């Protein structure tokens, strides 16, 4: 056994030696850890988007003149494997910046046992748990934690706003039984009640059930005026088909996770006429449209999966902050530069190669920029959470169309009024 371990150590040392040799041949390079569940169907495009940002930054001149070397690892959606991969990235590849991951059950142990103790900055696209806010607020994250996923409270509040404006009197909440679903389901129920809508029941859907008939029947018992759906497309499709088949109402409000072509085509556009969705993005700026166009040009299809715009912004903001902090920066120094990238008073820059080049020039001169990302001009609060304006959207012939835009001020004002 001992010999085996020594062998492994030797092999890793050799691999590192080889790698350093290769790195020295170029001018310089900066290692950035990227950890996403690439072996899971929905995780792969999220990772692909992050790697694409790395390419764009390199085209724009690289981080502080150095090529970004995005080292991608798969977390297999398994906490132990994810923590190990993060540990290898931090210890062996010596990254000061880790981008990832999706599942909060993996992101949290990485933050508490790997990145925060080692002083490495961590930025996630999609982790949604409110535990992360608590960890940041307690100081355990040492200011190194950020996420571009707008926490569930904004979407929950906007859903209540839409329901109130549509004159809905009673509603049943159906949520995915994971950390995200439990959070958003609870917050949405509270928000509906705060605006005077009767909440009949909150029903949890467990993953991977062949049928959700029992849950649909349970929801139907109260004859609610509308449904609130905090579901992913897989169980969303299955549940909504059962629900409509049983004669349930077609008035539905959905979270941004249902923003999927699969959901639209499988449930059928004819059944989704009364469906309205919420999201926390702002396709008001040219860069958001630019993102959709650039994505389609690069990957050959429109960005329709969950988390893609968030993944883009997570990588872009983190890498621009890295540039501002310099090639030899520590994680703490990179984290300290994030406000300079998302400064509302800074020069507005689009999320394109030219925009990145422009931003990097301004940042190098000590100025600040307002990054206009794929999810809008995001800013972070003290706990690394994003605050963003919201939109409502509907399904149409061509896919999904924006219905109304709710500015940051309106969202904050409404949230203050119901709390």
């Amino acid at each position, binding site marked *: 056994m001992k010999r085996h*371990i020594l062998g492994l150590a030797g092999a890793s040392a050799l691999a590192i030696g080889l790698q350093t040799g290769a790195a020295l041949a170029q001018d310089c390079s900066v290692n950035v850890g990227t950890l996403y569940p690439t072996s899971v169907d929905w995780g*792969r495009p999220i990772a692909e988007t992050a790697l694409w940002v790395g390419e764009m930054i390199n085209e724009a001149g690289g981080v502080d003149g150095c090529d970004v070397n995005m080292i991608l*690892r798969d977390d297999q959606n398994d906490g132990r494997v994810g923590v190990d991969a993060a540990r290898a990235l931090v*210890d062996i590849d010596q990254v000061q910046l880790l981008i990832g991951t999706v599942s909060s*059950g993996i992101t949290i142990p990485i933050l508490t046992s790997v990145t925060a103790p080692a002083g490495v900055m961590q930025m996630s696209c999609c982790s949604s748990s409110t535990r992360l806010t608590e960890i940041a607020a307690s100081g355990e994250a040492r200011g190194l934690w950020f996420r571009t996923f707008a926490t569930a409270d904004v979407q929950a509040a906007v859903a209540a706003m839409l329901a109130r404006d549509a004159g809905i009197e009673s509603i049943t909440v159906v949520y995915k039984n994971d950390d995200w*679903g439990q959070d958003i389901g609870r917050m949405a129920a509270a928000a509906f009640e705060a605006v005077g809508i009767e909440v009949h029941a909150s029903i949890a859907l467990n993953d991977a059930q062949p049928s959700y008939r029992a849950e649909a029947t349970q929801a139907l018992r109260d004859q609610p005026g509308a449904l609130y759906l905090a579901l992913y497309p897989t169980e969303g499709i299955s549940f909504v088909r059962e629900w409509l088949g049983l004669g349930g109402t077609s008035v539905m409000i959905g979270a941004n996770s249902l923003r999927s072509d699969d959901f639209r085509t499988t449930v059928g556009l004819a059944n989704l006429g009364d469906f309205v969705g919420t999201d926390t993005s702002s396709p008001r700026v040219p860069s958001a449209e630019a993102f959709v166009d650039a994505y389609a040009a690069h990957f050959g299809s429109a960005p329709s999966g969950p988390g893609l715009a968030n993944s883009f912004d997570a990588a872009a903001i983190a890498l621009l902050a890295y540039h501002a902090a310099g090639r030899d920066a520590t994680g703490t120094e990179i984290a300290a530069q994030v406000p300079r990238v998302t400064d509302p008073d800074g020069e507005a820059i689009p999320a394109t190669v030219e925009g990145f080049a422009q931003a990097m020039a301004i940042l190098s001169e000590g100025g600040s920029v307002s990054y206009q990302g794929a999810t809008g001009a995001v800013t972070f609060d003290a706990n690394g959470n994003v605050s963003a304006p919201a939109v409502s959207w509907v399904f149409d012939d061509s896919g999904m169309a924006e219905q109304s835009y709710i500015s940051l001020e309106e969202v904050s004002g409404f949230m203050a009024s119901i709390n």
Partner: protein
Amino acid sequence: MIGVVSYLTFFLTMAGIMAIITLGLNLQWGYTGLFNGGVVAFFGAGAYGTMILGGPAEPGQFGGFGLPYLVALGGGILLAAALAWVVGLLTLRLRHDYLAISTFGVAVALESLARNSQWLTGGARGMRGFPRPFEAVIESNFLFGVVFLLIVLAVLALVWWGIERLVHSPFGRALRAIREDETAARALGKSPTRLRLWSLVIGAAIMGAGGGLYVSYTAFVSPQDLLPILTFQIWAMLIVGGAGNNRGAVLGAVLIWGAWTLSGFALTRLVPDSMQLDAGSIQYILIGTLIVSMLLWRPEGLLPERISNPRNTTAGKAAPTSNKE
């Protein structure tokens, strides 16, 4: 270089925790023939038990007693043992595949319980903020890793020593007798039901210790940690290493955990940039191939069980001790 050492320290810590759990399964399966398909349930009971007793208080939630580390860890181990005792009373009349299915069901039920009992386990959000042992007094992150590795190795050594003592005692021989031929063991005056229960409970307590150590490293536990993949990993470790042999169990744990994690590390260096996105899937194929080829090539494991005692001592001692059992 310090980075490599630091990573290896961490790798050995995780492999050590896996090895502890594998030793627990080895007692159950390797020595007693109990097909435990719910390893992760006992790991989870240990992890949640330790967290509830030793973690910080949360508003609106049971637990958060902030007890001293050893008390919390001990409580986690006791919870795992208690769970095994209840499960054992209900299911130990079942044999082989029936026992496997019912223990698997227990594990799935426990995961569901953890996911839904928000007042007890925090639900899907999990529980956080466990004070990691000695972290407050150790400044350096690296040194903390080394100290934690030593703690894990100490527990591993203790478990190893305990199991070795146990299986070489009359009790251990009785366990093997039950594994080989239950009717014969009963004819010799052994009580298979009681012995099987003891084996299940002790093995589960060891798995619970693994869970407690894991949660005290990550300072966080959530239902994501209770997925059946862990049960599969531990079984792969025991089968590849060699059931009925503690050395085999530990070797298997290190090898399989190495294959599981270092393969991902190696692939990021070996596959071309254009295939980075597929590295995760390639890794799964490699792990699967390794396990399947081990089963084909050495179904008895790398270090199979050895009944090394000369026949006369084994046979000679078995009869007189039967009174004690």
